[in-house]
């Protein structure tokens, strides 16, 4: 059972790599190198702040685009091209297929993030010529970005299990935007009354709270991240992704593959 999930995950990873997804790393490296050189020339004293902000935001956006654009086609493309027929006619359970696809995409994003992180640290070294202890905080910000990716992967997979790639992309991206303002939504819910309050509170807790994962600003200012937040975000991301993935499995288990 675990072996089948691993084989599906590994095939998904290989597909992403051969689809030249990781070529975006070259674009990322060029962008960061150019930015580091430019920042080194025009900024005084804040080069490091700008490079960290720019670098981590780029890691997050590049990963988001990859997660959504691969994730939305993971199931629907397999149905459309009928590659799924020769997989599900074997002793493969439908949930194994979904979970395998999730781990394959998550693995692609982790590898992608690892290489982009090397780019961020290289650009940082270029502008500051040394590393200090506070730079380790960048790793926490990267960890939070990876946790965000897990949630986005599961959402893209959920939408892909019942919708077309285009609609899935719209849904996933909309949820990312709404989730980035989840704290504001919660604040609004607290101020509203009656049915609106009930509705806003429900929506605020249903959408993924991506704002809690964004520590790029504080990391750039070398402000420490509370250990409690690390635990909270880890448990939240794993729980949220597991719930969404269960939803995807539930839908896919009952879907007719016409």
């Amino acid at each position: 059972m675990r072996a089948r999930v691993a084989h599906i995950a590994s095939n998904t990873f290989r597909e992403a790599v051969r689809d030249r997804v990781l070529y975006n790393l070259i674009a990322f490296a060029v962008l960061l190198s150019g930015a580091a050189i430019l920042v080194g020339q025009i900024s005084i004293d804040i080069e490091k702040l700008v490079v960290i902000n720019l670098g981590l935001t780029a890691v997050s956006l590049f990963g988001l685009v990859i997660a959504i654009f691969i994730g939305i086609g993971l199931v629907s493309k397999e149905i459309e091209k009928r590659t799924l027929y020769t997989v599900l006619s074997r002793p493969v359970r439908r949930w194994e297929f979904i979970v395998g696809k999730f781990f394959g995409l998550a693995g692609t994003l982790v590898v992608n993030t690892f290489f982009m992180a090397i780019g961020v640290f290289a650009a940082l070294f270029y502008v500051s010529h040394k590393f200090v202890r506070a730079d380790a905080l960048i790793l926490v910000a990267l960890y939070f970005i990876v946790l965000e990716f897990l949630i986005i992967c599961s959402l893209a997979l959920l939408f892909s299990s019942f919708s077309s790639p285009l609609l899935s992309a719209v849904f996933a991206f909309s949820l990312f935007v709404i989730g980035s303002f989840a704290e504001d939504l919660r604040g609004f819910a607290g101020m509203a009354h009656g049915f609106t309050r009930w509705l806003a509170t429900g929506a605020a807790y249903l959408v993924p709270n991506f704002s809690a994962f964004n520590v790029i600003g504080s990391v750039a200012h070398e402000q420490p991240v509370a250990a409690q937040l690390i635990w909270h975000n880890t448990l939240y991301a794993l729980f949220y992704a597991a719930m969404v993935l269960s939803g995807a499995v539930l839908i896919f288990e009952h879907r007719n593959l016409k």
Partner: protein
Amino acid sequence: MNAIEILGLEKTYRVGFWAKRTKRALHPLHLAVEEGEIFGFLGPNGAGKTTTLKLLMGLVFPTAGSARILERDWINPEVKAQIGFLPEQPYFYDHLTAHELLKYYAQLSGVPAKERSRRVEATLQRVGLKDIHGVQLRKFSKGMLQRVGIAQAILHDPKVVFFDEPMSGLDPMGRREVRDLMEELKHEGKTVFLSTHILSDAEALCDRVAIIHKGELRGVGAVADLTSSVQGKVEVIWQGPQIPAFMKALGAECHITGDTVRTIIDENQQDAAVDALRRERLRLIALTPVRTSLEAYFVEKLQYAETSAGRTA
């Protein structure tokens, strides 16, 4: 023992924007396929053949009914390890090579790790794919992809193999090879379920056939039985090119090919025809009853269905 037992499988789809209308793709289907036979599942396009196969593979869920494969519930994963399936016009992960694809399928089918490479190589050879190392499937022709499809269906040495239009995209040589392969599978004791609309393939290969039309089963039987009904005519072939006066008197149409002559006459005139050939000192080559072809049986079943539907309307 029955290798496949279909127990009233039925499929109705909900169609339209609000899914309020229904469309019946398959009426309750009852069918049994014996172990070790090549069973033909025949029907025109859109008859319900692919729906039946999708139901058996667990790709779509039945509205009612069930099935048993190798005497176990058909959706049991252990049963799936014993079956092979070639979908119609198969499409594979085109970023993989044929070796990588088959290795992936071998992993999913539970082929032991130490056997995989040998099995993949042997299966590719068996379906006639050579010198394809390092070539991604996106560069394969339609016929080559069909061979890959057949390879993935038999790779894990299944006991029952389902083929949906396996000759599609193959050249005459390829079709011949696939026919031979199916015969080999039969001799190895495997059950072959062949869904096709090419009747000559079915007639040449199958032990028994079922005919399906508009989602309904129209007839089942052994090919030999279905084609054995003598129409009261015999075919006479002799060495010519002379045509005896008796034959001319019968008004039978004689076809001369090289130095042989062929004609069809009424069965009750066959003795007189043979006597006439003897008198003229012509050598009789063959005297065979005219049998109904599978095609004639198929057309008759379909026409009967259309007529019945017309009467009911």
